[in-house]
């Protein structure tokens, strides 16, 4: 399992030129499939700032690797909102579907093999990734 805190800020390396082409800014989670579907990249040398999961060459503890800087592209239309800053999951409040507050998301743990979110880590509790219902601009909603 890998945590967001382990990879945020890590460099994105282009394996063809062995240069840094960006830095991981934030992971992008699809609440429907409950998977990490990509990463937002800052200081990107590619045409956009979104690196989709399929475009990754490697996901290691010290760097993400891509085959070329062009893999860091504009977000596809259906992911425009989802990849934006306004829907970042970290520091967002967590509510149950009955309206009870659980705290804020401190960290997220996911499976590096397929991107499956295994748990949301709050201040002093864990929420299993399978309880994830939605990630909105107000809150992350989980089953109660």
């Amino acid at each position: 399992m890998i945590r967001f805190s382990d990879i945020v800020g890590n460099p994105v390396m282009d394996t063809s030129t062995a240069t840094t082409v960006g830095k991981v800014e934030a992971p992008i989670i699809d609440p429907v499939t409950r998977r990490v579907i990509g990463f937002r990249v800052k200081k990107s040398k590619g045409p956009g700032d979104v690196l989709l999961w399929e475009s990754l060459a490697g996901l290691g503890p010290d760097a993400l690797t891509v085959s070329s800087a062009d893999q860091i592209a504009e977000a596809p239309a259906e992911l425009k909102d989802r990849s934006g800053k306004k829907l970042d999951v970290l520091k967002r409040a967590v509510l149950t579907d009955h309206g009870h507050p659980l705290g804020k998301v401190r960290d997220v743990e996911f499976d590096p093999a397929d991107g499956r979110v295994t748990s949301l880590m709050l201040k002093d509790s864990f929420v299993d990734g399978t309880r994830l219902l939605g990630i909105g601009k107000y809150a992350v909603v989980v089953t109660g």
Partner: protein
Amino acid sequence: MSVLLRAAELVKRPVVTLAGDDVAQIKDVVYSSATGELAGFTLNGRGVFAGPMKKTLPWSSVHGLGPAAVMIRDEDSLADRHAFDGELEGAGGAVIGSVVLTQSGRNLGAVTDVILSVSEKITDAVGYEIEPSDKSAPRRQFVPLPDALAVSGEALILPDTALDFIRDDLAGFGAAVAEFRSHLGKHDTQPPGESGTPAFDRGETTPPEPPSYRPAAPGEQQ
């Protein structure tokens, strides 16, 4: 499990979809004029400058009601403004501020808030918080409501037996309501004792902090 809460506490609470977006906030509580049950909510937009919304939220569309938010499935759960024609809006409407009279004509005080009992599916107005007309009485009292009561106009008429079930705090009020209703021959309320603790504190309380000050043991000088 049912919990008791004041209707006024719901005002300004955000309305959040299961996708996590806040689409509105509660403007006011609407009661059914026939039964006194909660009919739903009128809404304001979110944000400092947002005004009243044309949409309303019927109680039947509420997915969950918690201390932090009113949850709905999605934006389609909101109804249009005509859903509540003929019903009573809480503050500024007929309920808050009206005088509570017993059947024999004693004035108990003016309504300051409505106490709701919230369980998984049913929400019912179970009592009123009143400011007693008797100045020697506590500042706030809670009077139970019969199961069905027409709330309208300037005064609310309660049976004389309601006098025995007035409480000074919410803690024992849940049981008093159940007792009062069974006294009136209605048995479809929650068993007493189930709502024995003040509901809105539940889930938000933190365990008492251990005292941080500890006298230094001998020989432990800085």
